[in-house]
């Protein structure tokens, strides 16, 4: 549940509409669904990737392959995070050579997660292209990375946390901005 002083910046309906719009953008950019695969970054990128595949299936009648990518072993901050995230596992049951991979994540922030994810992806093969779809872009990039498809651009301060809640994982649906707890370590 959101903190008492949290600000809801996307409702369930807005998330749904953003997913539908991005699903059209993805197909438009590829001029079809040929050679497209979706890879969600654990953990909330995975249900988002499935939702995008559902939406594309609705309007194109084609079911795109969906994979899950865990980037724990590719992080550059293993010794910086106080409590390291539970490994949720990678499952990419298809060939990545010569396909267009759309990486899917919930929040784009420093770009370090995406950098790790691209390192991981190229260990599986040589995709024709890697694109990036995110539900929220909150700014503050530390690496030269940008998203191809964005649900919502949200200006934030570094003292804030953008919390995405998805019904598949969280018993709630919506995006909130919360204040960073004063002593908490930054993990995202």
């Amino acid at each position, binding site marked *: 549940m959101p903190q008492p002083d949290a600000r809801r910046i996307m409702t369930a309906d807005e998330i749904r509409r953003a997913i539908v719009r991005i699903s059209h953008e993805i197909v438009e950019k590829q001029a079809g669904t040929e050679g497209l695969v979706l890879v969600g970054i654990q953990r909330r990128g995975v249900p988002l990737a499935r939702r995008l595949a559902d939406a594309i299936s609705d309007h194109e009648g084609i079911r795109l392959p969906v994979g899950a990518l865990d980037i*724990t*072993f590719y992080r550059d901050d293993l010794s910086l995070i106080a409590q390291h995230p539970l490994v949720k596992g990678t499952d990419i049951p298809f060939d990545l050579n010569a396909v267009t991979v759309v990486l899917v994540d919930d929040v784009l922030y420093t770009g370090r997660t995406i950098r790790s994810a691209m390192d991981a992806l190229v*260990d599986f093969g040589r995709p024709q292209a890697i694109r990036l779809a995110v539900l929220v872009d909150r700014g503050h990039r530390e690496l030269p990375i940008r998203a191809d498809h964005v649900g919502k651009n949200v200006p934030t301060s570094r003292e804030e946390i953008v919390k995405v809640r998805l019904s598949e994982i969280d018993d709630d649906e919506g995006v909130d901005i919360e204040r960073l707890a004063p002593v908490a370590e930054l993990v995202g």
Partner: protein
Amino acid sequence: MSVQLEPELPTEVMEGVERGTEAPAWRHRHLLDTDVLSRTDLDLVMRTTDAMKEVLRRPIATVPALRGWNLTLLFYEASTRTRVSFEVAGKNLSANVVNIATGASSVTKGESLLDTIRTLEALGTRLLVIRHSVSGAPYLAARHFSGHVLNAGDGLHAHPTQALLDLYTLREHFGSDLTGRKVVILGDVLHSRVARSNIWTLTAAGADLWLCGPSTLLRGFETWARAGARGGRFTVTSDLRAALRDADAVMALRIQRERMSAGLLPSLWEYADRFGLTADRLALARPDVLVMHPGPMNEGVEIAPDVAAGPHSVITDQVANGVAVRMAVLQLLAGGVG
């Protein structure tokens, strides 16, 4: 002679982990034995091992998790599989691996264990894997070393990564709940650090653990069995048929001739005759019984060649799982808060 009571299971479970985003923290700085590992710790190791198995199936089975970490293998005792397994595990995680054969090092000039450890520390080692013939040697090392110490076998005392890979191999076949599964450790229990570390993990996992062998090679274990280990009691017996009956898994132990003092065994032949794991005896166990052995084997002594290579054998699975388990442990120690 056997002691059998209801196992008392710890109630701590992985509650909240599925829905939360963070792991229960790994709070151990060293891995010296399995006695300090809670059920939650064991589950964390097992789940991390699952992820490592997936890494091992990739076209490029190397991840950069330990890039820049120096891992030193310091083996004062002979080893093939454990040393190579740690070396491969370290390299799969992109650590810099240094291998010290003590026979060709300053140890032969009389350098003490502590001096060697201080030297390795000064050379930048942060992860130190030690095997030593003296029980407790890695504990001494851990008190003086600023990084992480992993015990790769100390004397008769402990071999934690072997116990963890055995647990993983059992769970791979029986699922994550081993409650009530009858697991028999058969043979030279007295000299076995593998047996001792397995007692902690298998009782913690809720298995129905039996230790079986000649009474001379079970000395002291009845007292331990009555007191119970982490998760409850276990059974100690010299009655081979009772031990093997309806067993889910049988782990044969190597007769450790190099540690055997006079009078414990009349002869290897007599041991093989009375306690060797043969196909006939294995027929007492469940039809889908798993046969395990920590290696190296004395085939024809504690285990018959046709059993070791037979359809029930998961001995090569144990070796393969050893790499994944050691990758998991290295990752957890390097990334933990201990």
